[in-house]
C-alpha cells in the first residue's frame, strides 16, 4: 500500500484555484486538479460503478469547471460545487444511455488492476462500491476524500445532519470489518 499521505483539500485553496482559472492565472488548473482530482474520480466511480465512465466524468468535470469558473461565486463549499458538477455529468451519461455500463465485481477488479492502486486499495474501493449503500458511499467519499464537513454534506444531499453522521459511522464500521478481515 502507498504511504498514507493523502491531504484533504481545503476550501480556501479550492476557491483560490477556481478564481485563478477564471482570471487566467498560470498553474491554477493544475492546482485544482491536484486538489480535487481524487474526490471527483472517487465520486464519479461510486456513481457510475465503472472505471472508464469515471475517468470520462473526471475529465469532463474539469472542463465544466473551467467553463463555469468566470461565474463562480464562493458560497463557502467549493467541493460541494465541484461534486455537483460531477454528479450532473454522471446523470447526463446515464440519461444518454438510459443506464450505466455496470460491471461485475470481477470486471471492476480487472479495471482497477490497471491503475496504481494495490490489492488492499482495490479491495477497499470495491467494498465502497459493493458493500455500502448509495448514501453511505457518497458520504464517505465526500468526507474522507473530498474533505467536506458533515454539515455541508447534509446540506448538499438534503438530508438531516444526524442521518449523515449515523450513515457515515455505519459505513466506517463496515469498512473496518473488511479491512481488519483483510489484515488478519
Amino acid at each position, binding site marked *: 500500500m502507498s504511504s498514507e499521505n493523502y491531504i484533504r483539500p481545503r476550501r480556501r485553496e479550492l476557491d483560490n484555484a477556481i478564481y485563478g482559472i477564471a482570471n487566467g492565472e498560470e498553474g*491554477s488548473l493544475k492546482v485544482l486538479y491536484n486538489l480535487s482530482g481524487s474526490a471527483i474520480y472517487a465520486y464519479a466511480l461510486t456513481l457510475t460503478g465503472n472505471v472508464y465512465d469515471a475517468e470520462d466524468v473526471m475529465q469532463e468535470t474539469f472542463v465544466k469547471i473551467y467553463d463555469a469558473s468566470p461565474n463562480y461565486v464562493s458560497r463557502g463549499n467549493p467541493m460541494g460545487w465541484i461534486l455537483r458538477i460531477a454528479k450532473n455529468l454522471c446523470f447526463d451519461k446515464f440519461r444518454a444511455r438510459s443506464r450505466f455500463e455496470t460491471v461485475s465485481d470481477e470486471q471492476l477488479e480487472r479495471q482497477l488492476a490497471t491503475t496504481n492502486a494495490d490489492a488492499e486499495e482495490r479491495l477497499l474501493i470495491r467494498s465502497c462500491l459493493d458493500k455500502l449503500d448509495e448514501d453511505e458511499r457518497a458520504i*464517505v467519499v465526500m468526507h474522507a476524500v473530498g474533505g467536506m464537513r458533515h454539515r455541508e454534506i447534509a446540506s448538499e444531499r438534503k438530508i438531516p445532519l444526524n442521518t449523515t453522521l449515523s450513515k457515515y459511522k455505519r459505513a466506517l464500521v463496515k469498512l473496518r470489518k473488511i479491512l481488519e478481515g483483510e489484515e488478519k
Partner: protein
Amino acid sequence: MKNKKIENKVAQSFSDAKPDVYDAVSAQCPTRASASTAAKRSSVGGWRIATCALAAILVVAIVFGGVALGLRGGSTAVAATVTLDVNPSISVSVDKNNYVVGVEALNMDGEKIIGDMDFKGSHIGVAVYALIGKMVVNGKLSLDANSILVSIEAAQSDYDALLDIVSNEIEYMFGDASIVSQRLDDTARARELSEKYGISVGKAQLIVKILDKVPGKYAEEQLVSLKINELNLILDGLGMAGEEVAQTGSANDGKYIGREAAIAAALATVSVGQPPANVRCKMDFEDGAMIYEVEFVHGDWEYEIGIDALTGETLSYEREPLTKVQGTPVSQEEAKAKALELAQVPQEDRANLTVHAQTKTDDGETEYEINFVYNGYAYEFELDGFGNVRAASKRQPSATGTLGYDDVKQRVVEEVTKNSRFTSLKLSEIRDWEIELDYERGNKVYDIEFKWNNYEFDCKLDPNTGAFTFEAEIDD
C-alpha cells in the same frame, strides 16, 4: 483500527486509483489570457469564446472591442469623467468623442478590478462593460448587492448621451443592476468630504444629498463606511430614488433578513399574529446598523419598530396612542421597575445597577425616561404616567449592525464547554479564530472556526434563534 486511519486508507486508495487525465484536461482548457497578454494575440484562433463565458468575453471586449469601435490614440483632452462606485471606485475620463483618455482607481478595490487592463483609446462603452464584468466575476456586484453609482462630470448637453451609453453597457453585462446616477454639479462640499474620507466625489455627493434630505439624522462618518447598495437601500427608504437622484431597478436586500421576516419579527415583538393591513416596512440606517423600520397600527396604538436587518433582533420600539390614554398613575420607581423587567434584568442584578430616571411633563402629561447599561447593552425606555411603554431601545455601543465578534466568541465558549469533552476550554487558550457572517437558505449564520489544543472546531451560530452546532476534529 481508528476512523481516521480508515478515512486515510479510503482517500489514498481512490487517489492511487485515479487516472492521470491532466494533459487531456489541460489541452481543452487553455489558460485564459490577462488583458496585457491577450493584447499580443493576433487572432482569436484557439479561443473557446463560446464556452469561456465572462472572463474571456471581457478580454475580447477590452482587446478587440477597441479595434472594432475604432481605437483612437489622438485626442487626450478630457471632456467628461465617469465615476463608477460599487465598493470598488473607478474613474474613467473620456475625450469629446467618448474615447477613454485615462482610467484611475480611487481605492484599493478599484486597483484590483483594473489590474493590467489598459483602456486608453477604447470607447467608454468597452471600458465600462469590461470593468463591470470584472466586478461581477469578483463578486463585487451580485444579486444580493446589485447597486452601482454612476456619477458623470460633463456639460449638461453631453450628460444624457454619456449616461445612456454607460447605463446600457452596465445593463448588458449585469441585467439585475440597480443604477443610481447623478451629474456631478455643485461639488464643493462633496470634494471636501471626498478628501476628508478618501472616497470618490460621486459617492461624497450622494452622501451630501442624503445628509441634506434629513438633517441631523445620520452621521457622515457612518454613511461614508457604507457600500453603494446600502446607500441605495437608504435612498429607497427615504423616498429619494427617482427624485433627488435617478435610479433604475431597485436595490436588493438579499444580504439581509428581508422585509417579510422583518415584519414578522416586528409583529412578534408586539405579539400580533396576522400582519395588519396597514403595515409598512422600509430600510434605514440607525446607530451604525442597517435596520428595517416597520410601522403599523394595532389596537389603539400606532407602532414603529426597528429590526436589525442582519440579525432580526428588535433594536427600537416606539408607539403613540391613537386615543387619550387613561389608567392608574405609576410612580418613577414603578416605572423603573417596569423598565428593568422588560429588559429582563434578574432581581439579583438590580441592586448594583445604576439606573438613570427622569420625570418630565409634556402638555400636562407625565413621562418617565429610564436608561441604564446592562450586559454590554445600553437600554433606553420612555413610559407614560400610567406605566405604558412609549419607546424602548437596546443598543450595543460598539455594534456595527451585527453581533459583536467578542459576543460571538463568548457565546461559542459558553456553548462548547457544555460538551463534556471540552469543559476545560478557555477563551484565552483559543487560537486562529475565523468568524464570518454567512447565509444559509436566506438566514444569517455565523460560520466560526478556531483551534484549541489539538482540535479544530467548526461551529455555526444562528443570531436569530441562538441555535448553535459544532464539530470538532483532531487537527492533523
